[in-house]
């Protein structure tokens, strides 16, 4: 067991800074936003440090109580890649916020945003199943408040819907956790994972269903994703970007941490203990989500809502990838998660810039954008083509891997992938339609959009990253493979790294 307690700062620093932001807010509102940027920059570079110096996998022990007695953070390859992803996306959106967040209570907005990202990082790194609940609530409550922020009233409606569904979801999750506790008497993920087969199978199944249902709310899987369209549409654009680029990452992470590490039964293809294969359940949910999301997006005329539905559908794709249960599937899932998060966050940010110039969200309003701002149009196109899985952009490789994994699994996954590919064609249609509107029509007015530096930085960074991943997939590929290993080999990849002596004498 390797310990590296300094990494507690990954959670500690955002908390400290979040607590101090109201004080900075007395000095200047701008300072509060800069604090967010600096803190997330710290997180990002800490993540890169962990990655490049190859410190992972390691444990962070809280309060000197080693797992399974106390709480710990476990930062393996999967957590590393997601921490870097989340902090990068967060950093970029916080830079964007320097420009965009300027009405209402900016100080508290900055604070909540910081804690949303910090909470997601905690969620990703924690090694305690109840601690996950706490961090889910941290991200949850901050995202309700963030979603309610904004000048438009629809933000409030969306936030309330999210709140209700999410509360029910977290209650279900809590029930699931405690049902497991009654059997095993511990809350540590590693110990539960090692001993999951010692539970009563009926109870385990039920607990698993509750956990899946609770976590599917954050992971945006049908039928628990009713909140998605309204909340994404209602929230201001950087918040939508955050929800889709960071929030769903955390949701998916926990869902598959629970399913594959805690409930997982090792094999060629990971399945779960209990009477019911929850992986198959999630695969069904994922397919339904993809189809419903894409078809709903197809008939949308509001671009933001279209992005929301597409976001949902993409999460379905990610879920399908993980649920295949093989290394390749997990690899595809991680890859797709990274690509989706970057691309979708960028597209919401671009939409935010567009809307701020008085251009509407309706698809007709996108006409002739090319003549107004080639930069934004190109960036949007890059994002869209990446989501469609076209080459030169990151999404190509993930979709490639996803199809490979499903076909390798065979069986009924052939149908799943057929459905997915059909839905992808639908997705291609509506994205290319927007792109077409942007490129073809002459605009009615030719006012140029001047993008100032602060929103331009994240958009440029995201597009460069998308293209870089598209050309050199090994940027994400290597660590994704390690992450896939961690997920599919639960004893070697997770449990023994946390509690080395669990195998016994």
């Amino acid at each position, binding site marked *: 067991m390797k310990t590296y307690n300094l990494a507690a700062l990954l959670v500690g620093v955002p908390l400290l800074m979040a607590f101090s932001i109201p004080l900075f807010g007395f000095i200047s509102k701008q300072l509060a936003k800069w604090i967010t940027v600096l803190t997330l920059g710290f997180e990002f570079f800490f993540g890169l440090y962990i990655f490049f110096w190859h410190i992972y996998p390691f444990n962070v022990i809280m309060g000197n109580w080693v797992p399974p007695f106390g709480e710990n953070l476990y930062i393996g390859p999967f957590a590393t890649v997601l921490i870097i992803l989340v902090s990068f996306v967060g950093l970029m959106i916080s830079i964007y916020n320097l420009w965009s967040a300027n009405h209402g209570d900016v100080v508290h907005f900055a604070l909540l945003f910081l804690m949303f990202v910090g909470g997601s990082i905690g969620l990703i790194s924690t090694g305690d199943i109840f601690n996950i609940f706490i961090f889910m609530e941290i991200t949850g409550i901050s995202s309700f408040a963030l979603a309610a922020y904004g000048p438009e009233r629809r933000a409030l409606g969306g936030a309330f819907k999210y709140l209700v*569904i999410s509360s*029910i979801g977290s209650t279900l999750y809590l029930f699931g956790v405690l049902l497991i506790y009654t059997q095993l008497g511990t809350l540590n993920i590693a110990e539960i994972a090692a001993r999951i087969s010692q539970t009563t199978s009926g109870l385990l199944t039920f607990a698993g269903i509750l956990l899946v249902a609770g976590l599917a709310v954050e992971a945006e899987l049908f039928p628990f994703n009713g909140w998605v369209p*309204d909340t994404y549409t209602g929230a201001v654009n950087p918040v939508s970007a955050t929800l889709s680029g960071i929030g769903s990452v955390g949701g998916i992470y926990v869902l598959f941490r629970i399913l594959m590490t805690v409930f997982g039964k090792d094999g060629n293809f990971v399945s779960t203990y209990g*009477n019911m294969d929850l992986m198959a359940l999630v695969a069904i949910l994922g397919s339904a989500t993809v189809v419903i999301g894409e078809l*709903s997006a197809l008939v949308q005329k509001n671009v933001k809502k279209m992005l929301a539905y597409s976001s949902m559908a993409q999460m379905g794709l990610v879920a399908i990838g993980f649920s295949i249960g093989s290394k390749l599937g997990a690899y595809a899932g991680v890859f797709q998660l990274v690509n989706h998060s970057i691309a979708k966050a960028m597209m919401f940010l671009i939409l935010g810039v567009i809307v701020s110039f008085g251009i509407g969200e309706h698809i007709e309003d996108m006409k002739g954008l090319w003549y107004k701002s080639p930069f934004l149009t190109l960036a949007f196109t890059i994002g869209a083509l990446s989501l469609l899985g*076209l080459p030169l952009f990151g999404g190509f490789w993930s979709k*490639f891997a996803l199809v490979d994994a499903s*076909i390798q699994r065979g069986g009924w996954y052939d149908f799943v992938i057929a459905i997915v590919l059909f839905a992808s064609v639908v997705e291609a249609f509506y994205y*290319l339609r927007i792109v077409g509107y942007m490129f*073809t029509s002459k605009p009615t007015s030719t006012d140029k959009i001047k993008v100032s530096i602060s929103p331009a930085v994240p958009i440029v960074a995201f597009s460069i990253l998308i293209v870089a991943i598209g050309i050199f997939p090994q940027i994400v590929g290597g660590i994704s493979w390690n992450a896939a290993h961690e997920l599919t080999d639960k004893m070697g990849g997770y449990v023994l790294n946390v509690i080395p002596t669990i195998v016994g004498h």
Partner: protein
Amino acid sequence: MNSLLALLIVPVIGSAAAAVLQRYRLVERLITFLTFSVTFLFLFEIKIGDILTWHLDFLGKNLEMGLQITPLSIFMLYMTIAFGIVLTFYNLSERSKMKGFLLLLTLAASNWIFMSTDLIGFFFAWELMGWSSILMIFGGKREEESRHGALYYAMMSIGGSYSMLIGIFLLSNLTGTFSIQSNVSYLTLILGLHPWWVLGIVSLFFVAFMVKSGIFPFHTWVPHTYGEAPDGFVPYLSSVMSKYGVYGFLIFLPLTSGAHVPSVLGLAWPNYVLLWFGSVTAVAGSVLAFMQDDVKKLFAYSSFSNLGFILAAIALFTPIGLTAGMFHAFNHLLFNGAIFITVIAVISKVGTTRMSEMGGIWQKMPLTFLTFFVGIAAAAGIPPFAGFGSKWMIFQAMISHGLIFATVLLFFASIASFLYLMRAFHAIFLGQLSHKYDNVKEVSAIGKITEVFLLGALIFFGILPGFVLDPINSIVNSFGLKPLPTSGYEYINGFFSSINMVSIFIVVIVTFIFGFALFAVVAKHKKVPQEDNYTAGQIPQDWNLTPEMYQFSYDFYEPMDKELAPFLKVKIDGFFKGFGESVEYIGEAIKEIFTGNVQIYTYLAVGGLVIFVIAGWVVW
């Protein structure tokens, strides 16, 4: 720098430069042209057998990717890049919204497609080519229609790619490698055991190729897309991009014609099916073409009709069939390029694509007229131009296999092609010149150079086909078939006989001069204005006749249109459209799930949970 790599890198660099400088149209066009030329120069550096491999850390494996030059690929490379040079040179004077950087991306992709030794690179390049051409088509003149055309193309193309993607993984999961060669040889190995299984996998690939080439029943996107694409891009689309499908077929055809495949009439089943697809495409294309009034659409149909010929020929996979197919592919590139370049020249001058509004242009654009004339003569298979030889060989190949009915079909298609070419020829260039076009001028110097070059090429390869047949023979050889005998550059050797193109050329020229002299000396003719018509005492307005309708190309084949109309009601197009509409309808219905009422969402969530619980009981 390795010149194989240069074939990929140079276009990409050029593309980046063109993208940055796209605001300055002429600079952009110049960069495009120069990049094509430089790429062509690198082509001289490479020779058959050159190979380049590298490794990609992907899917947790160290995948080997590579480029390799085969006789087929070098033939394709020369063909496409040379045509690209001609086209981009012409485009220097062209004004449509063609984006040079996308064309260069397409070039990089096309080079990669022809050289790739692995399926990952092949698919990557295939998709790259797909989306860059899709984006290009968005730039068409009419925004609604071009968007529709591009989306139609995108849907078909992406659908085809996904089919290929599934095929790739079915294969690679069997063999554990992505190398094309080992996959094909593996398939050959298991062909005896599971013929239908192999055919299933291969047909997944074939769908993609058929879509890209516009083969029946996936031809429906062709007219929409060709018709609406930016003018500068249409020749590339029809001449070059349709050949990717041919190349793809040629990768897998050796396999399907193997000895273990169930066969019919001495021809392996898949080949037989492909042959029929090809023949039907040829006929359908021709028939649909002569009912078109839009000139770009007409030649779009013409283009895929010719692809039908090519497919039918290569599907035979005999020496003569293959030679004929490849030869026709080459000729198609040439004459289709010539036709489309002249057509877009005319379109850019007269500003319409409707043939019924043209007429008499030959007086204004004589050189264009001549090039077009030679082009359609070649397309119609009139000796001595390129096109005659290949069609002649195709018929020989069909007959030598005893496929009488298919031969008849192809023959019918060939005749139909006379009809539509005749129509286009007449409607655009002959007849009376409308006063609208009094100010129309011949193309610019650049255009003239291009046209002269194409004219020369059409005649040169028509009378000295050996220059093409030689490399084709080496291709045939590389497939393990015995190439046809060669006997000099001017000879085409068929299965039954051979012809000397030079002597035919002399005969034709002599005949033509004689005929023209006769026409000039004997026939009485005078120029009349368009309105000068015999209306037999009727007042034209009573019949709702407007001057446009006097134009003799108006409703050129009206009687035949009426005869054929009932048969054309069955539309493949309608199938795809209906499918799209029903998907949209389902989408509308599904959207209603998200009503915006939080209670419904709660019901969904809790209801979903309850369903899981019940499912849990069932398996309890």
